[in-house]
């Protein structure tokens, strides 16, 4: 870990969650692009993509999804910076 990339730093993330985001709630995710996809057979998915500042930022997004009861299927780090 000590020799890997620093833990904290901006990066572009893609987060996939099961279910649809209530448009009223999308204000909580300003700055992220939100799209829906039909999913792979277990119902529709919502995909959030955007640049997050660090792990605290990412954790905030995940906690909000948790509070909205949207199960997270995958989190990918697409690119640093």
């Amino acid at each position, binding site marked *: *870990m*000590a020799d890997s990339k620093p*833990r904290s730093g901006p990066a572009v993330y893609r987060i996939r969650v099961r279910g649809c985001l209530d448009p009223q709630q999308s204000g909580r995710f300003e*700055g992220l692009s939100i799209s829906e996809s039909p999913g792979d057979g277990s119902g529709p998915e919502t995909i959030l993509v955007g640049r997050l500042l*660090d792990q*605290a*930022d990412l954790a*905030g997004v995940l*906690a909000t999804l948790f509070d909205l009861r949207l199960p997270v299927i995958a989190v990918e780090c697409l690119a640093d910076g």
Partner: protein
Amino acid sequence: MGPTRPEPASYVPDTKYPVPILRTRLHRPQVARDVVLRDALLERLEDGRRLPLTLVSAPAGYGKSTLVSRWLERSAAPGAWLAVDEEDADLRSFLCYLIAAVRTVYADACGETLGLLRAPDLPSPRVLAAQLINDLDDLGEELLLVLDDYHRLRESAVHDVLNDVLAHPPRGLHLVIVGRRDPPLKHRSLRAGRLMNEFRVQDLQLTESETSAFFERALGRRIEPEAVARVHRVTEGWPVGLRLTALVLRHHPDAGQVTEGIAGDPVQLQEYLLEEILTHQPPGMRACLEATSILDRFCAPLCEAVCQAIRGVEELLPSGKEFVQELQTSGLLTVALDERGQWYRFHHLFQDLLRHELKERASADDVAALHRAAARWLETEGLLEEALHHLLEIGEPGEAGGLIVRRRHPYVEGEQWSRIHHWLSLLSAQIVDADPDLLILQARSCDKRGHLNEMGESLDRAEALLASRESLDPDDSRRLGEVLAFRCLLRYHQARGEDALTDAEQALALLPEEAGSERANVMMTLCAAQQMVGRVQQGLEMLYDALQRDATKAPTYHGRLLQTLAFMQWMDADLQGLVRTARTMGEVGREHSLPETTTMAHYFQGAALYHLNELESAAAALRPVADDPHGPSFFMHLMSVEASALIHEAGGRSEVARRLVDALSEHLLRAGNTTYLPHVQALQAALDLRQDRVASAVRWAHAFETGQTTAGYHFSVPETTVARIWLQEGTPDALAKAEALLARLYAFFESTHNIRFRTEVLALQALVHEAKGDRKDADARLEEAIRLALPGGWLRLFADLGPPLVPVLNRVSVDPEGLKYVGRILTAFQAIESTDTPTRGARAASTGRRMLLDPLTERELEVLGLLAERLTNKEIAARLYIAPATVRRHTENIYSKLGVHGRREAVAKAQGLGMLPV
């Protein structure tokens, strides 16, 4: 218990707040001596203080709280601190704390918002946010408001309120949000607009040279550069990792050797460091550290109480005081929460590690014993919410319920209903339903919030529980007594007077003498029930007796006795007595700061003055209650709005009346309170009727469901409005419906001995008979109504029925005193018109003559004047130069128009109507 008992001042004792306020949560943490001074960061913080928001977002152990605390110490602007807690899941509790924090700087801030927070049914987040923004903006002064540990908040309503605050930032307010992750707020747009200052991991990591400086300060010696570099690389400048390392290095002269042991990932690092720290603690100290990790904050006596539950190392345990002192001297990651050095907390990360250690090493039972010990101590100190938290954490809601039952009395006495409601909401329905005491408490809380159906359900469950027991011990019979005490109140509400008396007598037989408060409640229901079954004198005498004997015992009891008296006088139609009672009630309420009693005093005074037709004084009395939907009693607010709306309507301000009622209806719908909806809709329909929107009123009347009529202690009864609508419609079918409804209401109010509403029903019946052309019956009904209303001097009751009543009033034959009264009623009719539009006012003039359906002619008036001089027909004929037969014709016309049968009656009535000088 140790000598350093925390002062009660750690707790805000006043009842200003509807939730208890723990002072320690409002103190910024004291900054440790070995902390690295980070001037550059402090400067950046200070530079951002004119922006609406500063966000400090980083995982545990990055020194966030320390940094911000340091900033507050130095900033040019005053700062307030709030350590957020899971308890703030409740919006009410969070906002109370927020206001308490603001008030540490501006003592009287946010009074209006606090008022809203006292409402039994909390207003919406939007309403609360708007008020809070206003209140903070009114301060107009600079304020740094820190919300520390914001990540603990999971309640979206709280986020909604803060989003509103950030969207409309009050002048001078700078919000500082500190947490382990980014908050679910709309801060990204602030960031994009450069309207926020931000501190994240990169900003908070220590550089290698800061790391070196830190070790030097913490250890008092230099560490070799290679060791510093190694520690810095592994910890990535993570301050708490460095502090843990420093604790280990204290016991190791050879830093190189230690730092070689730290490698791998942060989890391994933490475990390694903690193990190193704990193995160097004496066993007693180590046991105390682990045990006290269950406490989110602690003082010496609390530690001592908790540590007494540790088994195995009893003889090695330090005292609470020694433990806390040792924490200080050894620099174990502890944060002081107040200046007096009484309350502390562990560094969050350190606490997490210790808790983990405790879970590994102790059995679940041992951990539960620690929580119980903490709960016991907290309970005796009156820190009930904290105690409940510990019991709920170990999955013992039953014990939590027991605690509420043990400690409920002072809170019930102090009318702290929203707090009691909060406690009950922490428990599951299962727990409440299994405990008669909790069910009784819930019934009380339902009663206060006006949810009568739920109240009945709680009582039935409690009674069933007690009935299922094989035998009743003294406590059980007392409980049954309490259930019956509440059920007699419910029976009373349901107008089942005899049942109420039976329950009341049984309750008094079961309740022991020392259950003074319950016995008092039953006594009051008993008095009112006596009235309901027709023994009003007995009921009043019992009440006067209690007022003389017991009133001085407790102010709340005094207030409640007066309330009962007021309700009884209202139903007994004794307006004069009601005015006196309301005045006394106001004095008692003010003297002892009883909000509910004061509110009632305003309402009753306003209601009585309204019916005495003193509209301006009535409006002034009602205003404080009518203007505040969030006051201590929603019921009183509702009735005050009703009366105020009628005053505006009578004064020709129809629009104002309508706005008041619409706002009330909206509030009820928003709060989901349907108990009072029929009252408000009836009021809307009554206004429709007066404002020529008959069709809308008729629609409502058709939809109105006449359920069970409840005891008539309210300001109005919805059913009488229904009757007036049918009457206005006037078709034979509608009149028949009105007649049937009024017959039912008459029977109800006669059987419940309610003179106030019996009178109103009689007057309405008179109108129905009049509409059917049945004059004799109309007169008889109205004469009865006048006889009943005369002692109290009711005016608006008749005047509110409008012009159709005037011809009947003009006809009725009553004694001279009655006639004078009728005159005053007719004057009240005019008052409506004269305060109305100017043209109508001018037309109304001021003579009773105008009120006659068929006014007297000038000549008839002349004859009437001479009748008053007791002249004979012959003498009158001589005076007026007319034939005696013509005089006779005139007198007969006069009698017919006035509805009288002889000259004496005619004169008395004309005097009563103000047509002749008395």
